[in-house]
């Protein structure tokens, strides 16, 4: 599944300072369905190059990290259960920095 991932608010520093990643994620199950929960695991393994604890805590993103799926707050679409589709854009923004 082709997806575009964006990292902001300093999170890009965990991915070699690259903000935008065009990725191809292969669902790990028979039904070819991908949820945000699956994607997070994939991102931690394949995109995050250092300090994964700044991105994720247990199954989800670390508190203070906002997630938008197609410009929409993931809290509206079920957070970890949010289903993903081809060409979706997922944005991760950290709020943990100075004001």
């Amino acid at each position, binding site marked *: 599944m082709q997806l575009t991932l964006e990292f902001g*608010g*300093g999170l890009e520093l965990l991915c070699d300072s690259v903000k935008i990643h065009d990725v191809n994620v292969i669902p790990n199950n028979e039904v070819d369905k991908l949820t945000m929960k699956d994607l997070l695991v994939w991102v931690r393994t394949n995109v995050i190059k250092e300090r994964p604890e700044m991105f994720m805590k247990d199954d989800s993103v670390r508190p203070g990290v*906002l997630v938008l799926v197609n410009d929409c707050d993931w809290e509206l679409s079920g957070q970890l259960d949010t*289903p993903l589709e081809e060409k979706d854009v997922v944005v991760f923004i950290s709020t943990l*920095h*100075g004001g």
Partner: protein
Amino acid sequence: MEGNHEKARVRLCYLCNQRRAALKRPKTLEQICRECFYEVFEEEIHQVIVKNQLFKPGERIAIGASGGKDSTVLAYVLSELNRRHNYGLDLFLLSVDEGITGYRDDSLETVKRNELQYGLPLKIVSYKDLYGWTMDEIVKTIGLKNNCTFCGVFRRQALDRGAALLKVDKLVTGHNADDIAETVLLNILRGDIARLSRCTSITTGEDGPIPRCKPFKYTYEKEIVIYPYGYGVKFPWIFFIAYCISLLSVSYW
């Protein structure tokens, strides 16, 4: 199945009931679209300013501008509300250069950009000029412990001095609701009753030369971060760049 999937993904804004909801507001848990969020965000801040009588027409106001997310959004929103509601304020940007290499240089660049974009005059006061020390030099001398104490004290005084040089009537800072909540918890844990009683005031230092106020006192951090991001329809493109660079500039983890 496809139809259900699509339906589940589309929720309407609770305010206009027409556009797709794009954000769940942490303040109210309401689902709101982009356009309504802009309006509500700005209107609420306007109401805070009016209800708490933060400003008087003709006042000179310095915005403590670090180049970070809160002060950048504050500078934009305040200049916009000043224009829209005719507050009649003379606004300035006031920045402090602590002399931390690789940190302050980037965020000061952001504030200099804000100066050009918002047309707000900028004053930078530096620790080096005021005290003869940069933070880099202080850390070299005393190590990494306790330098925050020095910096905090120096910064407070630097802002006061900068405000005095600009001859302003008030200083505004971008402290938000999350910051205040953290401060309350900190003071409880420390048992600091004196500070606890003062720390939620929206205006402080009224008995001193330069009062300070916090227009973002009731504004949630998540909303401040979301406000410019992806809502570029209203937030001019170039501000968005400055905003992102300002977020990048704070990389100490």
